[in-house]
């Protein structure tokens, strides 16, 4: 039982980070209908920027964080402006391929910079663990999880209570209608890329804090995609639940099966889920239902 609780709690905490990555992809999809692979690199570069600010330039944590967010936002802005915007009016598949190209392009630079090595942050979150009736909880992971949840709360509030958030929700429903209501839809696209890039960069820092910066980091973006699809691509709450579910499934399956199977179950589990979603519930767990009056 303690084993189960241990696996489950770790799963939930890591799942919160997956959710953050997933929601960045959901944000872009909701507003623009484009599924972005580029966010995997935005995540990796976010993690890298933070390392450079924190450990190379020795900036204080909050300066490093602000710097990272700004750079990531700028990267998102540039990506949207120069690769996605020119494709407006083309098919969505073209846009998807473009985000794939961006992924591969940036992947080269990421590998080049790391040149096979791994980088780790000097500790900037609370360290160590504490014991909750037998379950050992990492303070660092708990802090990242808390930050992730705060970002989710901020996103919910933004979409619910601000004018720009409302315009984004309107845009995500119907581009043409949004334009006819006076919304600058292209501006919304740009803004959503900026916001989602900032979010995924924070997710990147949190993930890198757990797993260090090394080459597979951009592929956390694929996990984000799994989360986004699992959650139905359109729903922020869906991404949150799906992220936590993915974390749970990964940790439980690897916790119980890694021993007998000799490891590697974690990542396999994620892809099994992806396949299952595509086969069984292509619209995800929480895809928006089209409202039909009968």
């Amino acid at each position: 039982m303690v084993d189960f609780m241990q696996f489950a709690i770790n799963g939930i905490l890591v799942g919160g980070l997956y959710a953050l990555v997933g929601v960045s992809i959901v944000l872009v999809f909701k507003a623009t209908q484009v599924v972005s692979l580029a966010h995997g690199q935005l995540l990796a570069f976010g993690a890298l920027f933070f390392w450079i600010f924190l450990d190379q330039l020795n900036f204080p944590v909050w300066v490093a964080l602000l710097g990272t967010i700004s750079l990531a936002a700028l990267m998102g802005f540039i990506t949207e402006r120069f690769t996605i915007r020119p494709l407006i009016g083309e098919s969505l598949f073209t846009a998807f391929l473009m985000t794939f190209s961006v992924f591969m392009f940036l992947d080269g630079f990421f590998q080049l910079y790391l040149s096979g090595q791994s980088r780790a942050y000097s500790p900037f979150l609370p360290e160590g663990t504490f014991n909750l009736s037998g379950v050992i909880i990492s303070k660092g992971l708990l802090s990242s999880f808390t930050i992730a949840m705060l970002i989710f709360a901020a996103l919910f509030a933004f979409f619910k209570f601000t004018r720009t958030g409302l315009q984004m929700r309107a845009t995500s429903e119907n581009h043409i209608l949004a334009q006819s209501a006076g919304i600058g839809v292209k501006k919304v696209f740009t803004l959503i890329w900026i916001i989602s890039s900032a979010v995924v960069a924070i997710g990147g820092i949190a993930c890198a804090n757990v797993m260090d910066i090394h080459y597979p980091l951009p592929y956390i973006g694929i996990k984000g995609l799994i989360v986004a699809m699992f959650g139905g691509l359109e729903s922020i709450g869906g991404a949150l639940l799906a992220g936590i579910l993915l974390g749970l499934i990964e940790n439980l399956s690897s916790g119980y099966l890694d021993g007998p199977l000799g490891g590697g179950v974690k990542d396999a589990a994620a892809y099994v889920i992806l396949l299952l979603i595509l086969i069984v519930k292509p619209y995800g767990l929480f895809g928006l239902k089209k409202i039909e009056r009968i």
Partner: protein
Amino acid sequence: MLNIENVEVIYSDVILVLKGVSLNVPAGKIISLLGANGAGKTTTLKAISGLLHTELGQVTDGSITFDGKPIHKLGPEEIVRKGIVQVLEGRPTFEQLTTEENLLVGASSLKDKSNIKSDLDRIYGYFPRLKELRKRISGYLSGGEKQMQVIGRALMAHPQLMLLDEPSLGLSPLMVDQIFEIIETINVNEKTSMLLVEQNAMVALSISHHGFVMENGRIVMEDTSVSLMQNEDIKEFYLGLSSGGARKNYRDVKHYRRRKRWLA
């Protein structure tokens, strides 16, 4: 106020739909644009509002000016900012948003946000029913309620000119009367000019000052609404008053399969 001169519109670079349309909307007036399905009425409105661009349509000749300034190169949201709002055919709402959120979206073009509360009250004054529905998700509203909502949403932008595309379509006669009464009231109270596209010629002419009749991408007739109502052809084709003329079936609207594309 709005002047359209000899406008030609081509879809997808090949399909010529408007073949030299000229019409004008003077300030403060209600102008009807009548015509059968496929005549080019919606295309005319989209050419004015800039929404044509979203459907691979282009104004290839002629000019559209608003208060003397050409507008046919502007994007839809810029045209809204200039004071022209189109109320789309089929009264589409943002279905996942509540009625009040829909109305607030209508105010997107306004720089000054300080009057939004009183604007909402103004809309609820015209449409008390919307106030009852303000927290309701819009997807489930009835046709009449949606029509009220989309007109209300357009009003939030303080338009000088409203383009209304078949507001009577598919509504009960009682609801049609109610909607048109409000359109007339808005015209009087807010001094909003209206370009009213209708197949229900009777009800359109009854509230408008002047009317244009369109056929096959051309304006074929133009007169004061009073004289148009007396006109024999109009009576026969649009008012359904002739001996053999069955009343038009307003549900027979064609739906065009738009090429699948995003935003545009």
